[in-house]
């Protein structure tokens, strides 16, 4: 992510268009299309939602309703790195709260300095890997049975 050259952007628009066309612009393919859009752009902008609504022949409010219902979709651009802290029962008991606080502290520290945080912190109810509790998914890679110190080190390595 970061700065995007216009040619790359055009390609993403084309890929989204192709995803919609593959579904025959069917209105029931909304979630599928939003998935593709989220993966391509990293977030769903108002213009993007408007475009999807128009092409799938859906009311804009319906599209927004679906986009805000699922945790997977984000309406705001994400930071360079993402940390998904599992707060399911097993992880919570094993100390997910500390991990969450440690991650959120990074964002607060950046904001206090007047910088844009390089980390987006998300919470999951359960990622379905209770045997690995407490677990954090950092940039798509899972950190199993992670301690606060280990997480801090990983975040330091990423420079967030």
């Amino acid at each position, binding site marked *: 992510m970061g700065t995007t050259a216009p040619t790359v952007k055009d390609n993403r628009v084309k890929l989204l268009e192709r995803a919609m066309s593959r579904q025959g612009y069917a209105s029931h393919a909304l979630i599928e299309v939003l998935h593709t859009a989220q993966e391509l752009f990293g977030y769903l902008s108002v213009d993007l939602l408007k475009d999807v609504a128009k092409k799938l022949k859906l009311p*804009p409010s319906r599209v927004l309703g679906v986009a*805000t219902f699922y945790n997977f979709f984000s309406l705001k651009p994400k930071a360079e790195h993402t940390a998904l802290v599992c707060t399911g029962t097993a992880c919570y008991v094993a100390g997910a709260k500390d991990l969450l606080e440690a991650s959120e502290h990074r964002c607060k520290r950046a904001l206090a300095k007047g910088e844009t945080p390089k980390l987006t912190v998300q919470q999951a109810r359960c990622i379905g890997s209770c045997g690995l509790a407490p677990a954090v998914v950092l940039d798509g890679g899972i950190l199993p049975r992670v301690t606060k110190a280990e997480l801090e080190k990983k975040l330091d390595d990423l420079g967030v």
Partner: protein
Amino acid sequence: MSVKTLTIDGKMMTGVEGDTVFTVAFHNQVQIPRLCHLGGVPDVGACRMCLVEVEGRSKLSASCMTTIEEGMVVRTDTEQLREYRKLLMELLLAEGNHVCSVCVSNGNCELQDLATHLGVDHVRVPYRHPRREVDLSHERFGLDQNRCIACTRCVRTCDEVEGAHVWDMAGRGEKLHLVADLGEPWGNSENCTKCGKCVQVCPTGALFTKGSAVGEMEKDRSFLKYIVYGRERHQWVKKP
């Protein structure tokens, strides 16, 4: 179309296949409490107030979403149901910010009327006091999310009757709220035709006509009957 016979509260009733328990009961003068059902627009079973007991089923069924079956035995007003409805009402009252004394719909509110009818004199669950928005950007109407009970009557009426589908529900759980188009202020909505049908069908003071003071907002949804039934029967002139 076959006719089905069922028993509701000990009385034999008949309905056509596909009818809901709620409709059959209503036509036979059995009033089941409800907040989200609205004659003329499709049901969604959002409010759960119309829960009934059906013999042979272990779970309670929302009568507006249950189609009738031959020989069905339904009870709509048992001690347990009354207690559940009371609790549901208390949860609704605790979930939003329903302050009758400063509400435009005070005295003409379906939520208030039903709470009175159910005998809710106090709320046993802690109030949540959520922070919610008020949208006064529309030239004629206002939206107070604090008074919204998410019945989706406005959503369905705007979609089915007016055909504009301005409204929908966004978010979920405690963040569930009403949105116009892509979450912009109502007044900026391109799809809104300013017809005011949503305002008239809203059971509470969440949607109201601007300029109404406390207790002044009286709603009239008689137009629904003319539009919906008139459309079905191609009857464009009101009966004299």
